[in-house]
């Protein structure tokens, strides 16, 4: 009876919804990395489908293939390739970190929460910083290659 009374009174759940996939508000760094991992992953799978189609063009002979490659050397596609590469570098390095962390490594053992305590997420932060430095480094190298060494 009390159950029924309560049901009637509650409003609908206020879910943050899909907005949470693109907006992390005041939460910390890992919450933002989650968004980037998701965005880059979805970008990569979309690209993979295009990529499978595009590499298949070779079966239609040399002319068709060369035309496609010429298209990919236009500025729009070069920028696109760079964004893709940056997304891949981030996704792969962050993914490597996640493979370890999701299997319970790099987080430290359970500890009694006696003030001032550090949570596993804090203990894990140095790895996050290392990942960001590495990502920055590789993306800079890619920018150099794609925009400067471009032949």
């Amino acid at each position, binding site marked *: 009876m009390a159950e029924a009374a*309560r049901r009637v009174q509650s*409003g*609908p*759940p206020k879910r943050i919804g899909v907005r949470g996939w693109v907006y992390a508000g005041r*939460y910390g760094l*890992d919450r933002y*990395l989650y968004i980037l991992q998701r965005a880059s992953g979805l970008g990569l799978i979309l690209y993979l489908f295009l990529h499978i189609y595009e590499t298949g063009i070779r079966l239609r002979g040399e002319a068709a293939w060369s035309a496609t490659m010429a298209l990919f050397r236009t500025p729009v596609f070069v920028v696109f390739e760079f964004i893709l590469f940056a997304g891949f570098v981030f996704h792969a390095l962050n993914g490597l970190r996640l493979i370890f962390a999701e299997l319970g490594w790099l987080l430290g053992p359970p500890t009694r*929460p006696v003030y001032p305590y550090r949570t596993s*997420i804090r203990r894990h932060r140095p790895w996050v910083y290392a990942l960001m430095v590495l990502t920055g480094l590789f993306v800079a190298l890619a920018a150099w290659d794609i925009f400067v060494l471009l032949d």
Partner: protein
Amino acid sequence: MAERAHGAVETGIVTVTVRVSRFHPETDRSSGQQDYLVPAGPGMTVLDALVYIKEHLDGSLAYRSSCRMGICGSCGMFISGLPRLACQTQIRALGPVVTVEPLPNYPVVRDVVPDLEPMVTHHTAVRPFIVRGGEEQEYPTAEYLQTPVELDAYLQFAYCIKCGICLSACPTLATDPAFAGPQALAQVYRYSADSRDDGRRARLGAVDIAHGIWRCHLAGACTEACPKGVDPALAIQLLKRLIVADVLGIGRRRGPAPVAPPDMQAQRRPDIPAAPPATVPGGSGAQKNQP
């Protein structure tokens, strides 16, 4: 932290604008906001401010609290952009305008009172108690043996007060109500990692489903938000490891902790006074065991 007490000195009274979500289930279709000016002295918490509003400014305000010392888990609210316990949040650390909203991802009962039913439902579904096969479960004969190291494997996760704050922080629960959520998953680990437990098979099976534990992506928000240092994100990753080890058959498996029967031959030391006579004639089983 970016949050600093505003005002030059920590003493004296400053006026804080408390912007509270208002929702009345019988007259409103969605939440509105109302501003209250609250004089805040040093040490005042957000809960103190709500008490002040209810006593002096607006008796119709509804909020939930009980212990006002961070142990009952009643006063979880979404305060200035983060879910926290109102009784553990210093109001003057939040700036001149403080917003108070009900916890996200829950139905609203009224004003800033959430209906914690979704958390309770998931919590009770994961068998959050020690499971032992056979007679020992229903008719315990003795205490279990556990080393301090075995205790530390789960103790941190046993400090959960079921405030439901972590479910408000979780990005998966923001879209997927079928996801068990950080609180329940942390309790799955808490009991499965307990050396006294023998029920882990059923418990792990219940969360090893499409909407189960694998929808956690380690966004870390639950651990950041948890007011008790329970660290649900850590528990969930350790639980993933436990399940992976089980599936691949590489886990170290020990039987559940043995029980230690009381020493019936023990003699009372002469400097310890004898127990008082039983108040119930015949006494309980435990008293019968007394030498």
